[in-house]
């Protein structure tokens, strides 16, 4: 990665980290409801892959831990926060919530809350790309635990069979909710499970963005060149619990500390400092600047935005009726 790109991505990763930490605070203050799944610790995964891909051009789909993926694709952090606040200005107009962030214009095809559900949807998006003949690819980000669903295998089979342009990114954070991978999964290294479908697969460190980026470049090139699907496993860790109701009793504080020694933001920061591209003071200023942006713009926007109107409760269940009348009434022109 070029120095300028590394500096830009560091800024983005700091935003992603501070955004999520601010969500935590807002949740405690009961400004955010429902379930909230946070991303700190895993930032190099989404950022490394999307640096190798084309955000806003390639189609991205993921599970419920989706805020950062949406922002990386180009969604406005203000709209994402407003969504968490349940506001009309939210990315899904307050109808989705944390687990269902969408940005159709940026080709962020959503967060879905059934574990494994996005696998076949991603393959379908790739099928549509194949039919239309574009150079886009579909990228499906999911956790390791999703691979224990039946549709994982069904989808790998179809994606390989039909050579669909889809990249499966497995963010292996070692836990499915509160059960460790050793206790839930017969084969711990997920890329090995993919070999059965003749899909090329790779595993790498998910904490060092430059390693992720290099592995993702190879993966993206493979898929974009029309060679069919690819599976990339990134070894990573989430600092927070699965969601906000999780007190992390299933793992030790020592294990958490070990992973925090390899924090993705600090790895990149320290490398930039070592290369003389920035100083610690620059980084601290960046954090402050980011916090100020989140507070003065993102939170302010979410706080001040209007709620959806109760009269619009049933809006968006079906397509706008006026546009569908020929088929609903049979009176086609």
């Amino acid at each position: 990665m070029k120095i300028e790109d590394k500096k830009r991505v560091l800024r983005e990763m700091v935003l992603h980290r501070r955004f999520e930490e601010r969500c935590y605070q807002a949740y405690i203050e009961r400004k955010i409801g429902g379930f909230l799944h946070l991303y700190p610790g895993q930032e190099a995964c989404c950022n490394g892959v999307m640096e190798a891909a084309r955000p806003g051009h390639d189609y991205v789909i993921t599970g419920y831990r989706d805020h950062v993926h949406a922002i990386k694709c180009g969604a406005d952090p203000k709209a994402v926060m407003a969504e968490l606040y349940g506001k009309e200005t939210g990315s899904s107009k307050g109808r989705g919530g944390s687990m269902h962030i969408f940005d159709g214009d940026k080709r962020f095809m959503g967060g879905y809350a059934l574990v494994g559900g996005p696998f076949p949807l991603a393959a379908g998006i790739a099928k549509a790309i194949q039919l239309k003949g574009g150079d886009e690819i579909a990228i499906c980000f999911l956790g390791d635990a999703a691979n224990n669903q039946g549709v994982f295998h069904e989808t790998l089979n179809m994606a390989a069979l039909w050579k669909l342009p889809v990249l499966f990114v497995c963010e292996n954070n070692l836990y499915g909710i509160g059960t460790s991978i050793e206790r839930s999964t017969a084969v711990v290294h997920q890329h090995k499970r993919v070999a059965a479908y003749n899909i090329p697969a790779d595993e790498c460190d998910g904490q060092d963005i430059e390693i992720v980026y290099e592995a993702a470049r190879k993966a993206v090139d493979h898929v974009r060149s029309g060679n069919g699907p690819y599976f990339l496993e990134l070894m990573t860790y989430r600092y927070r619990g699965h969601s906000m109701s999780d007190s992390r009793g299933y793992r030790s504080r020592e294990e958490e500390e070990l992973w925090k020694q390899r924090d993705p933001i600090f790895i990149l920061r320290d490398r930039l400092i070592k290369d003389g591209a920035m100083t610690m003071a620059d980084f601290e200023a960046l954090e402050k600047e980011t916090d100020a942006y989140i507070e003065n713009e993102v939170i302010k926007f979410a706080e001040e935005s209007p709620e959806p109107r109760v009269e619009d409760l049933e809006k968006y269940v079906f397509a706008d009726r006026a546009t569908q009348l020929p088929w609903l009434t049979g009176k086609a022109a």
Partner: protein
Amino acid sequence: MANIMYWEAIQRAHDEEMARDPLVICMGEDIGVAGGTYKATKGLYEKYGPLRVMDTPISEGGFTGLGIGASFLGVRPVIEIMSVNFAWLAMDQMFNSAAKVRYMSGGQLTAPCVFRSAGGAAHQLGAQHSARMEKVFMGIAGLRVVTPSNPKQAYGLLKSAIRCDDPVFINEHELMYNMKGEVPDGEYFHPLEGSEIARSGTDVTLFGYNISVHWCLKAAEILDKQYGISAEVVDLYSLSPLDRAGIKTSVSKTHRAVIAEEDEAPVGVGSEVIAIINEECFFELDAAPVRVHSALVPQPYNHTLEKAAIPDHEDVVKAVLKLFGKA
């Protein structure tokens, strides 16, 4: 008007829509090279090729989800689920992805896909190949459910379902694919909403849909000839949404109602129609509405037991006679 079979009507709708729009595709088990278990996609593979007529692996959840994902980008897949019993495996994707994506994305994404599936008890197919599941689908927000009772509807409903931007589930019946009927020669779009009067009458309304419309028509004939009772038959080809206005109009005219369904009674089409009658026109009733339905048993294999589990036109006649105090 051509007199063609139900499967031919479905095949024609596929063919016309695929010829018109290169983004209309169809997918399912054995639908391509083999031409479809019920021939509903016969000849399409040869005409449109494997990219658009996709023989899928036996992975209902997977290929249904794949079709839904493609529909997010404007592809219009017609997804055949060979037997509605297998749709259980696809329901997560149908309900959680297709039916909800428009709402949970605040209107940004939509899933314009069509699910077709054969339900119903055929001949001794046993517990896992005889289900009627329309009642499961009709309770899902964001999903339209239609069920054709004749070739004209089978053709016109599929045409409309493919054009509509909402996901549509089309409930077909294993015993009806060879039924013949008149289909317009020109292009025809059957409304996805509403109901139609299959036979006009004044003394009682018989509500049916799909195969039970035929029980009702046969029963109306017997009631007229043998008992002097004039029955109106209302075809509820749209199960979601149900035609509240149509139900009200007919019951307000006849003041009596029988609902015939191949489903089991609990949480069925009949329960819902009676609830609508209560809400819309309770004081028009001269007698309590009656349901005709299957026994609440897993479908038995034995022929005699199977026949005992499933209603037919005679059960509809009996229900009407009971309603008139003649049984």
